[in-house]
C-alpha cells in the first residue's frame, strides 16, 4: 500500500517545482493533449497513467522539450520557461529517460555520459569516470563505468540512461515506462533509487502501466484518457481497481468506441490485479501431443561465454511455454535464433514436422512459425502503410497473375483491422500508430497465418491494461486452437498467469523448469538469479 506520503504543508503554499498550465497539443485531427494542468512538487513522485495513446508520452515529450505545445505554458518554480529542445529542459533541471534508449552501443558507459554532458573542449576521462561512479552512488546501484554499452542488458542500459539524466543539475526526473523493461529485482532497485532521489528533494514523473507499482511508489496520480486529464488525485487510499476503472473510463458512457469486451476484460483483470496474475485454467498438457516447436542442443557462440549454450526445449501443440530470465541472459538471442535472424552455431530447430534450422525467415514462416518480438518498431517497415505491413510477409497470396491486387490487400487489411480492433485505417502510415496499435498489427500479421507455433517475446511490454489483456486473450485463444506458444517475458506475473510451463534461462543455459501451477515468483527468482549447480 501507499507508503509515506509527503505531507509537507509549507511546500503546498510555495509554487510547485514544475507546473504545467493548459498544455494543448494537436497532431492533425488528433487532440493528443487537451488543456492539461498538472504540477509536481519537490520530493514528490507523480505517476502518469493512461492507456496507449492517451497522451502520456506526448505530455512528457513536451515537458522535456522534445516537442512543443500548441498552447499552454510550463512554469518552473513559478517562473514561465520556454523549452524548445532537451538542452533547454536540461538547463531548467529536467531530465528524462525515454522508452527508446539513446546510447551509443560501441562506447563505454563513461564515454556515453561524456557525450551527453560535456561541452566541447578537453576530455577529462578520469573526472568523467569519477562522476559516473558518484552518480551511481547517488542512485544506490552499482554501474561499471568501463562496460561497453552494447554488451549490457536492457536493465543495465536503463540505469545508464538514468545516470545520464542525473548528470546535470536535475531537479525533475521524467521516466517513461521505466519498469516495462525490468525484471522484478531490478524494479525493486529502481524504486529504491527513486526513493533515494526524492528523499534528496528531487521530483519524479513516472509513467507506468503496472498499477500495483503505481500504488507502491507514487504520491500523486494523474490519469489521462484520450488527451484529457480525467483525474489528479493523491495516491493515498486509491486501489488498483479504482485506478483501472479511471484509465479505461469504464464508468462513463463516453467511450462507446472502446469495445465492451476490452473494457470488461480490463476490469476483470483490474479486479484480480494486486500483483496477481491473469488466471489460467489449463491443466497439465498431454505429453503425447505433437511438438509444435522442438529445439535441440541449440548453441550460439559468443565472447567470452557462449550466448546460448546447449538449449533444448519442446513446446507441444496446445501449450504455452514461458521463458523466464533476467534480461540479457540469452532471451534475445534465443528469439533471434528461432526467428532465423541469427544463424546458430550448433543445434536444430523444428517447427511442427519440419526442420527449419538452416532455413531463412520466409521458409520458417511457411513452416508455420509466427513471431512477435520485443522490438516492435524494428518489425515493421516504418515508411510503409498499415496494410502494406500487414501483407508484407505474405505478398504472394495477394497476387492476381503477376500483380499485387490492391483490392484484395485492402480487403484483407480491413478484415484484420476489424478482427483485431486495430485503431487505424489501412492506408495510414504505420509510424503514426501507438505502441499498442502497432502490436495489434504485428499480432494480426502473425496470427492470421494460423501458426503452428508462435514465438512471442515481451509481447505486452509497454502496453496498457486493455492491450495486455487483449494480447493474453489472443495467446490463450491460439493455444486453445491447438497451436504452441513460446512466451519469452521478464514479467513473472504474466508468465505464471498465462503459461502452462515455465523454463528459466540464465547465462544462456536452461537452468530449470516448473509447471506454472506450482510456480511462485520467489522460486523463479531463485532460478533466474540462480546458481547453475542448483539447476536440474
Amino acid at each position: 500500500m501507499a507508503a509515506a506520503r509527503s505531507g509537507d504543508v509549507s511546500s503546498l503554499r510555495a509554487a510547485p517545482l514544475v507546473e504545467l498550465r493548459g498544455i494543448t497539443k494537436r497532431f492533425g485531427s488528433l487532440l493528443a493533449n487537451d488543456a492539461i494542468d498538472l504540477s509536481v512538487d519537490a520530493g514528490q513522485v507523480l505517476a502518469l497513467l493512461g492507456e496507449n495513446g492517451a497522451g502520456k508520452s506526448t505530455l512528457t515529450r513536451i515537458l522535456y522539450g522534445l516537442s512543443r505545445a500548441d498552447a499552454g505554458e510550463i512554469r518552473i518554480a513559478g517562473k514561465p520557461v520556454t523549452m524548445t529542445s532537451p538542452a533547454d529542459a536540461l538547463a531548467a533541471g529536467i531530465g528524462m529517460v525515454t522508452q527508446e534508449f539513446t546510447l551509443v552501443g560501441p562506447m563505454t558507459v563513461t564515454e556515453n555520459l561524456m557525450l551527453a554532458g560535456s561541452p566541447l573542449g578537453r576530455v577529462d576521462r578520469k573526472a568523467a569516470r569519477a562522476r559516473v561512479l558518484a552518480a551511481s552512488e547517488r542512485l544506490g546501484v552499482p554501474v561499471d563505468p568501463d562496460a561497453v554499452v552494447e554488451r549490457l542488458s536492457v536493465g543495465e542500459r536503463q540505469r545508464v540512461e538514468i545516470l545520464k539524466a542525473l548528470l546535470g543539475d536535475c531537479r525533475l526526473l521524467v521516466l517513461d515506462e521505466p519498469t516495462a523493461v525490468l525484471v522484478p529485482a531490478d524494479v525493486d532497485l529502481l524504486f529504491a533509487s527513486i526513493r533515494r532521489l526524492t528523499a534528496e528533494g528531487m521530483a519524479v514523473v513516472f509513467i507506468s502501466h503496472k498499477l500495483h507499482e503505481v500504488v507502491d511508489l507514487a504520491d500523486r496520480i494523474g490519469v489521462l484518457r484520450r488527451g484529457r486529464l480525467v483525474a489528479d488525485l493523491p495516491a493515498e487510499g486509491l486501489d488498483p481497481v479504482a485506478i483501472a476503472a479511471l484509465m479505461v473510463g469504464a464508468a462513463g458512457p463516453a467511450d462507446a468506441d472502446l469495445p465492451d469486451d476490452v473494457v470488461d476484460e480490463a476490469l476483470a483483470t483490474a479486479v484480480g490485479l494486486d500483483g496477481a496474475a491473469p488466471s489460467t485454467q489449463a491443466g497439465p498438457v498431454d505429453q503425447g501431443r505433437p511438438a509444435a516447436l522442438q529445439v535441440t542442443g541449440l548453441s550460439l557462440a559468443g565472447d567470452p561465454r557462449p550466448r546460448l549454450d546447449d538449449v533444448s526445449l519442446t513446446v507441444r501443440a496446445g501449450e504455452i511455454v514461458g521463458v523466464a530470465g533476467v534480461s540479457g541472459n540469452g532471451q534475445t538471442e534465443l528469439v533471434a535464433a528461432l526467428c532465423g535472424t541469427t544463424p546458430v552455431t550448433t543445434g536444430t530447430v523444428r517447427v511442427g514436422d519440419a526442420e527449419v534450422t538452416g532455413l531463412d525467415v520466409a521458409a520458417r514462416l511457411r513452416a508455420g512459425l509466427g513471431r512477435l518480438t520485443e522490438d516492435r518498431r524494428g518489425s515493421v517497415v516504418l515508411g510503409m502503410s498499415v496494410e502494406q505491413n500487414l501483407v508484407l510477409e505474405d505478398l504472394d497470396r495477394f497476387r492476381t497473375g503477376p500483380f499485387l491486387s490492391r483490392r484484395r490487400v485492402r480487403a484483407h487489411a480491413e478484415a484484420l483491422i476489424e478482427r483485431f480492433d486495430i485503431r487505424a485505417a489501412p492506408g495510414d502510415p504505420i509510424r503514426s500508430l501507438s505502441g499498442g496499435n502497432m502490436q495489434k498489427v504485428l499480432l494480426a500479421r502473425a496470427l492470421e497465418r494460423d501458426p503452428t507455433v508462435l514465438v512471442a517475446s515481451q509481447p505486452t511490454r509497454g502496453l496498457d491494461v486493455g492491450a495486455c489483456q487483449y494480447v493474453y486473450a489472443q495467446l490463450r485463444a491460439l493455444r486453445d486452437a491447438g497451436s504452441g506458444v513460446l512466451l519469452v517475458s521478464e514479467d513473472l506475473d504474466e508468465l505464471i498467469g498465462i503459461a502452462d510451463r515455465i523454463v528459466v534461462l540464465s547465462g544462456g543455459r536452461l537452468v530449470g523448469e516448473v509447471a506454472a501451477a506450482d510456480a511462485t515468483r520467489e522460486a523463479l527468482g531463485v532460478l533466474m538469479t540462480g546458481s547453475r549447480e542448483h539447476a536440474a
Partner: protein
Amino acid sequence: MRFVLRGREPRWLAAAAAGLAVVATLALTAGPIRLAGAAPVSAFERYVVSPLSTGNGIAEVLLAATPLLFTGLAVAIAFRVGYYNIGAEGQFLVGAMATTAVALALPDLPAAAALPLGLVGGALGGVAWAFLPAFLRRRAGIDEVVTTLLLNPVAVLLLQGMLNGPWRNPDTGFPDSATFGVGYRLPELFGSRVHAGLLVGLVLVAVTAVVMSATPLGVRLRAAGQSPAAAEFSGVPVGLLQWRSALVSGGLAGLGGASQVLGVQHQLTGSLAAGYGYTGVVVATLGGLSAVGVLAVALLLGDVQVGAQGASIALQLPSQMGGVLTSVLLLTVVAALSVRHYRLVRRTPRSPRPVEG
C-alpha cells in the same frame, strides 16, 4: 519562425516543393547568366522552350534523353533497394565495349541477329562490370559506393586502352573503332536521328514502373530499401534482392551503352565517356527513384542539354551553363525535398488564458 516535423504530408506538397525548386534554380542561375553577358529570361527560353519549338529540336531532345533513361533507371533500381550503385558510368562504358566486341567479331550478321546479340552483349558487359562490387558487398560487406565509383575510371582507361590498342581504327589510325557492319544499326525513328534505343528505354521504364508499383516484388524492394532489418524480419531476402538489383542495374546501364553505340555512333569512340552514368545518378535522384520520374527528368535534362547548345550559339553563353543549370536544379530539388517533411511555423503563442497570480 522554426521548422517542425510534419505528422503527415499533404498531396500537393511534392508538387509545390518541385515548383519552388524550379523558381529557386531560375533565381540562382540568373546571376551567372547575367555575368556571362546574356539576358536571363531569353537564356531560360533558349534552354527550355526553344528546343521544343521545332520538330528537329524535339528529336534532338529525345536523342539526348535516351542514354539518360537507361542510366537513370539503372541507378533508381539500385538505390531503391538500398544498393548505392554509383558505377553506372563504368557499366555503361563496358556495355558499349562488349557490344563493340560483338560487332567487330561478327561484322556481317544480319540485323535480326546482330541487334539482339549486340544489345544482350552490352547488357552482359554492364552486368560483368557490376558483378565484382556486388559480390564483394554480398560476401564481404564491402561498401559498394566506393567500389562502384572506383571502377568508373578503370572503365574509362580500359576504353582508351582498347581504342589506342587492339581496336584502333584500321582505316584512319584514329583512336576510334572501325565502323560497325550495317546489321548493327538500330532503326531510326520519325526520319530523324532518334533511334529504336528510345523505344527499348521506354519499354523498360514502363516495365519498371509496373514492377515497382504493382507487384509483390516492388513492395519487397521498397521494404528492403527503407528498413532492411524490418524487411529481413518479414522474410524479405534483403541481401539477395540487393545482389540481384545490383546486377540488373549494371545490365540496364550496359544496355544504355549498347544503345548509344548501336543507335548513334555506330562505332566506339572516346567521346562516349561523357558522364551519362554520373548524370544517371542525378536523373534518378531528381526523379524520386521512380521510373516515371526518371523518364520526366531524363527528358528535362535532354531538353536543357540541347538548349545549352542552342544558347551557346545564339547567345554566346558557354555550353557549360547548361550543366550549371541542371546542377543547381539538383541541389534545389534535394533541398526542397528534405524541407518537405517539415513545416514552418511561427513561434508558439503564449498561453491564451491570462495567468492569474
